[in-house]
């Protein structure tokens, strides 16, 4: 390829100004125009050994995808992406590209990488604007039945891949809406629910049957599913919220992030009383944690009318596990970072409601198992932060309901289902698992990557009967 002029910076993506967007739940970035998309895609160097592909958990042929966008062949581009990724409008928005494809972009050594994520989002949105999606031709039915448990990123991906192999797929969801964390956890302003619904509709249009309001573990057990399905995929996520186990945690106004976000997103409490589910609209909201879920909560609090939204994190800014983009947006919107603090108690005003949070100041010690410097509380440094709503966003682990009701299903130390990483097989014949239920809490795209591995192994199992 002829030498081309390097454009050092990404084409900026227009977005809602911070001062406006904190008063609404509308999506923050507007997305590229076709002209902007073509110009951005032209920045790609078309490397022979493309690091970006290796960085992608679902192995999209990114250079080819970018070449198609640069040529203006958006149809070709979206079709290519969809071969490997059933949820491009979602991953284009929530993937940590800066740690994956874009981190391995040749440009990123000296300049800004190609905005692969924004372009993925662009082609997905472009397709949606063209009307109903094209349904690819499916192979003849294999006559095999598969149950997919959970309709989050892992379940949707497994279901899509399995139905494309000609299997009959039924996807079970415990809640009243499909999408898992995409609908209950990630807020509207980061991932509009209409987009999730569109992706779910596409997967149903492929022939996947969706059964909502069905809790596998109680409505039917995995063993009962195995009576009628030839294989089962468990993609039930990490739905069990962690608490701090400190005094005052059960006061009113103290939420798990799961509850806070579920009220706001799935139940649409931000539109109360049009919708019936209420949420406490604090004036000074303190969110404990430093991950993406914490950022989502702190930013939701502002949109729910908080005058002040505080992040309380035990380590320093460098150790925060959230995406750079999330923290950037949060700070832009006025979220205040309170670092190196360990909450030790919640205090009430005597009426059962939280009024203050007591913290200890920390200093950073030696790196721990995660490689990040360990927070060490300084004794006697107690002080109080006044607050009327607290959101605890310190992580979650898999829900024990399925392991508890499924004999022969081995779990690990943190309640995760033990799998063989090559095939995502569990210890139980015919049962596969992938996503947060196996890893214990990671990203949308890693869940999808594992679901793809599982779907491939499941097809093989269904064909050969060999476990």
């Amino acid at each position, binding site marked *: 390829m002829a030498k081309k002029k390097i454009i050092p910076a990404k084409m900026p993506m227009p977005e809602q100004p911070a001062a406006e967007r904190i008063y609404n739940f509308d999506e923050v970035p507007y997305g590229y125009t076709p002209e902007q998309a073509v110009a951005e895609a032209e920045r790609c160097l078309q490397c022979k050994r493309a690091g970006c592909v290796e960085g992608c958990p679902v192995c999209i042929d990114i250079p080819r995808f970018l070449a198609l966008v640069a040529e203006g062949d958006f149809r070709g581009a979206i079709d290519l992406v969809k071969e490997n990724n059933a949820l491009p409008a979602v991953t284009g928005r929530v993937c940590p590209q800066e740690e994956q494809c874009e981190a391995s972009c040749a440009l990123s050594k000296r300049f800004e990488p190609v905005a692969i994520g924004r372009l993925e989002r662009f082609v997905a949105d472009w397709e949606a604007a063209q009307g109903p999606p094209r349904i690819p031709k499916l192979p003849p039915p294999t006559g095999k039945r598969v149950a997919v448990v959970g309709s989050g990123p892992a379940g949707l991906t497994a279901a899509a891949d399995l139905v494309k192999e000609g299997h009959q797929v039924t996807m079970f969801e*415990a*809640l*009243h809406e499909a999408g898992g964390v995409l609908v209950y956890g990630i807020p509207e302003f980061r991932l509009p629910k209409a987009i999730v619904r569109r992706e779910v509709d596409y997967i149903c249009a492929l022939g996947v049957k969706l059964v909502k309001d069905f809790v596998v573990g109680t409505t039917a057990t995995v*063993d009962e599913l195995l009576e009628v399905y030839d294989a089962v995929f468990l993609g039930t996520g990490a*739905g069990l919220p962690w608490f701090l186990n400190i005094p005052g945690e*059960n006061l009113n106004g103290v939420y*798990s992030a799961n*509850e806070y976000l579920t009220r706001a997103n799935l*139940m649409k409490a931000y539109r109360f009383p049009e919708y019936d589910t209420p949420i406490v609209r604090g004036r000074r909201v303190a969110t404990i944690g430093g991950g993406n879920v914490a950022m989502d909560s702190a930013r939701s609090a502002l949109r729910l009318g908080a005058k002040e939204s505080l992040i309380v994190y035990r380590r320093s800014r460098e150790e925060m596990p959230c995406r750079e983009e999330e923290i950037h947006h949060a700070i832009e919107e006025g979220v205040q970072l309170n670092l190196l603090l360990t909450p030790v108690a919640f205090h009430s005003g005597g009426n059962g409601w939280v009024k203050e949070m007591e913290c200890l100041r920390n200093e950073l010690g030696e790196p721990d198992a995660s490689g990040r410097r360990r927070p060490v509380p300084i004794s006697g440094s107690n002080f109080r932060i006044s607050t009327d709503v607290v959101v605890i966003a310190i992580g979650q682990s898999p*829900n024990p309901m399925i392991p508890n009701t499924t004999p022969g299903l081995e779990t690990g130390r943190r309640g995760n289902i033990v799998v063989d990483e090559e095939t995502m097989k569990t210890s139980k014949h015919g049962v596969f698992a992938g996503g947060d239920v196996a890893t214990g809490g990671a990203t949308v795209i890693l869940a999808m990557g594992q679901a793809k591995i599982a779907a491939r192994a499941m097809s093989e199992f269904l064909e050969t009967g060999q476990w």
Partner: protein
Amino acid sequence: MQKEEAKKMAETINDASEDWCASAPFESRPARVVRRESLVPNLELLTVQAPTVAQKIRPGQFIVVRADEYGERIPLTVADWDRREGTISCVFMQVGTSTYKLGNLQAGDTLATFVGPLGKALELDQWDTVLCAGGCYGIGSMFPVARALKETGNQVISLIEGRSKFLLYWLDRLEAVSDRMLIATHDGSLGKKDGYPSIVEELLASGERIDRVIAVGCTFMMYEMAQTTRRFGVKTIVSLNPIMIDGTGMCGACRVSVGDETKFACVDGPDFDAHQVDWDVLLSRRKAYLGNETDSAERSTSVWKR
């Protein structure tokens, strides 16, 4: 469950006329209202067609419902079921927007959400004599508990309570599964006057052997029972009713303090040892959204048919 049972269950849910359904068991179908009737003022009985849930439900378990697309998810304990007909019945009190919406449903309406069975089933054993106390919606919820205890071979003493005679219901049904019936009303219009704690106290003080007490009703009623039986050291189980959303252990809204530990009522309960429950926390957490309830009621009465 046995193989045949699973197959049978799949068959009942399937509509053989639809190809896909015939080949895909556990097809989802919106829960349809079979019947809705007022038992007594403010207490409604809702019977819903939900075959999958009806196959599985056991005493003490609950379901989560949402009346319409705007609705809240609320838990309701189950008052009865018919496995052959595939129906589930719940008794609930109309107190706010969600329960008013449920109380306005008519036969043939569908529910936006009906999911279950949720929670652990009540521990059943042969304890000899069990006192089953129910108040308010809990009279209904107590019925399958008393029935199961009787079937398990226990002597069942049923105690029902209410403000007045006209607020009591299902006396005949309870009588049929009880060895003895005790009734308490605040105004003395039926049974003993001045509330039920004195009945329980008399019973226990008289030296009558009661091996276990089970109480279902409003939080205050269960709290009073806990206080009464604590003095006599009789094991008492209550069915807690905190605010819930998903009902599967995902949100933690329903956390309760039991014996200095935080438990999720939806998956660890709903039944707990009454003498271990921190009642102050439970009462306080149940009242968290009372202010919102007024806003919601104002709106829902003004735009009732949206």
